[in-house]
């Protein structure tokens, strides 16, 4: 009971603190903008810990954050090995191949009306394939190692990037294209100097959606056969032996990796599309 009251008191205390900070002049500074969400995150962890202890939740149902933290600290080499296997080899490779192929396909579609009528429906069809259906088949085709996981990721990320790129290539208006014609620019010059730069906000939108899909795809694909490494492998086997602290440790790693991946792509976007209204800083 005392734990639960402590959790409640802590939550109300930090809530009041955050309200005060948001109303003060400190909140307009950079540090102030970071402190508010940090306090909120800390509150969630502390309240979770206190409630799990107070209500005596069995660790099989929900382990406390302290146990998860201890597991992360004691299994760093294992977690790193799983991260490299699933994220670097599976998700990142698949993301690069899938997004590259999608952008090239979009340009090909843009170039020829024939492909536009033929390829887009196929892309649509591929997007509708359920991952749990194709993953076992791709494992059969490409073997148990990371290659099959990368293949699943390629299938998953291809379509969102394709659709966004096709939309982006249509984003210039006729006035701009006419200007290029008056310069007697070739198709390639128009593409490189006008249409691809104009498509960048759209393309990056697709790339950002693809980051989260890639991680999910790589993890889920490992449920259907894998070597004895990888985040998906670890999650599925540790659930079977009730090592829920390890499962949560992997979830934490996946969440951090996914956020960092998304953030990295968003940063590149900011550099590439600095001219776009959405990137203007608030003064």
């Amino acid at each position: 009971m005392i734990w639960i009251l402590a959790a409640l008191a802590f939550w109300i205390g930090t809530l009041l603190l955050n309200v005060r900070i948001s109303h003060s002049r400190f909140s307009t500074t950079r540090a102030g903008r970071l402190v508010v969400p940090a306090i909120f995150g800390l509150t969630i962890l502390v309240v979770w810990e206190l409630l799990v202890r107070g209500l005596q939740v069995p660790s099989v149902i929900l382990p406390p954050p302290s146990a998860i933290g201890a597991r992360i600290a004691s299994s760093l080499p294992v977690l790193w090995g799983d991260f490299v296997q699933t994220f670097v080899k599976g998700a990142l490779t698949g993301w690069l191949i899938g997004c590259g192929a999608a952008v090239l396909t979009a340009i090909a579609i843009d170039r020829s009306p024939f492909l536009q009528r033929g390829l887009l429906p196929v892309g649509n069809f591929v997007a509708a394939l359920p991952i749990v259906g194709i993953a076992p088949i791709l494992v059969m085709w490409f073997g148990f190692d990371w290659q099959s996981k990368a293949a699943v990721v390629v299938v998953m990320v291809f379509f969102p990037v394709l659709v966004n790129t096709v939309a982006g290539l249509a984003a210039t208006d006729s006035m701009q294209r006419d200007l290029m014609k008056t310069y007697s620019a070739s198709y390639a010059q128009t593409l490189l100097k006008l249409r691809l730069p104009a498509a960048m906000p759209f393309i990056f939108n697709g790339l950002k959606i693809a980051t989260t899909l890639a991680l999910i795809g790589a993890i889920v694909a490992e449920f259907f056969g894998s070597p004895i490494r990888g985040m998906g492998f670890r999650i599925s086997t540790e659930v079977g032996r009730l090592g829920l602290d390890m499962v949560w440790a992997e979830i934490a790693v996946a969440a951090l990796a996914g956020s960092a991946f998304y953030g990295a792509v968003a940063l590149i976007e900011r550099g590439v599309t600095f001219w776009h209204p959405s990137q203007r800083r608030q003064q």
Partner: protein
Amino acid sequence: MKGLLTGAAALALIAGAAQAEEVTLQLKWVTQAQFAGYYVAKDKGFYEEEGLEVTIKPGGPDIAPVQVLLGGGADVMVDWMPSALAAREQGADIVNIAQPFKSSGMMLTCLKESGVSTPEDFKGKTLGVWFGGNEYPFLNWMSKLGLPTDGSPEGVTVLKQGFNVDPLLQKQAACISTMTYNEYWQVIDAGLKPEDLVTFKYEDQGVATLEDGLYVMSDKLKDPAFSETMVKFVRASMKGWKWAEENPDEAADIVLENDDTGAQTETHQKRMMGEIAKLTAGSNGALDEADYKRTVAALLGGGSDPVISKEPEGAWTHDITDKALN
């Protein structure tokens, strides 16, 4: 007043219905002849004779029986001892009350053409293994053979095998895990001949661990009424098992009748029942302490990553089977 009377009448009705004690059994896997004894006991009225009303819940690849038991979704479960003991280490207080299976049906099935004819040939080969609690006997066996499972050339490369036999058919692995009563026959049905295959039974290699036992929560067992219900349940279940051993074909038919998915075929189930009967033959339902000790020793010696770190205490009891069988 009238409300009170109807309330009392309703209570009397409920009390009448409660004459039959309700028991929910969670299976380890889907409905198949592996669990024939329970389906026979239900179908032939053995449970009814004991005054029980038994609900049998099939399992599957995404169902961990221990979690169902802990969550209160079942009173008793069928599980393998390695995963049950691993769950005990994680704080799930479960206890074995009966052991209908005497022998293990687990084996490695290898393609002859991959050059495996004795366990010494495993070195440098790729082997398919089930995880989720079923990997411990394998890891223990490899550590006995002195083969590291890290994929090094001196050791073996381990694949996490799904619950199918594709890796062997696709030649992605030299050997895969199979049960004598199920996956081995899937390999045969896929067109391979027994003479193309080499099998290594865990039982013959001296690394077998106890399979399908009945487990309940320890704290519930302290309640005399619940333990009395379990005595009746075990007695009727063992009656069902012995009936199934004597009438394998009819038992397979009963299993098929109870299979709501319609996924099982008659030939496969009849074969499975024949193999299962071999595994249950040596057991009257009581756990043999020597088998238990062998299982624990195997799990403690699981190589670099042992499944249990200390000798379990109170993981089994003879109280129920003593009352049920005498």
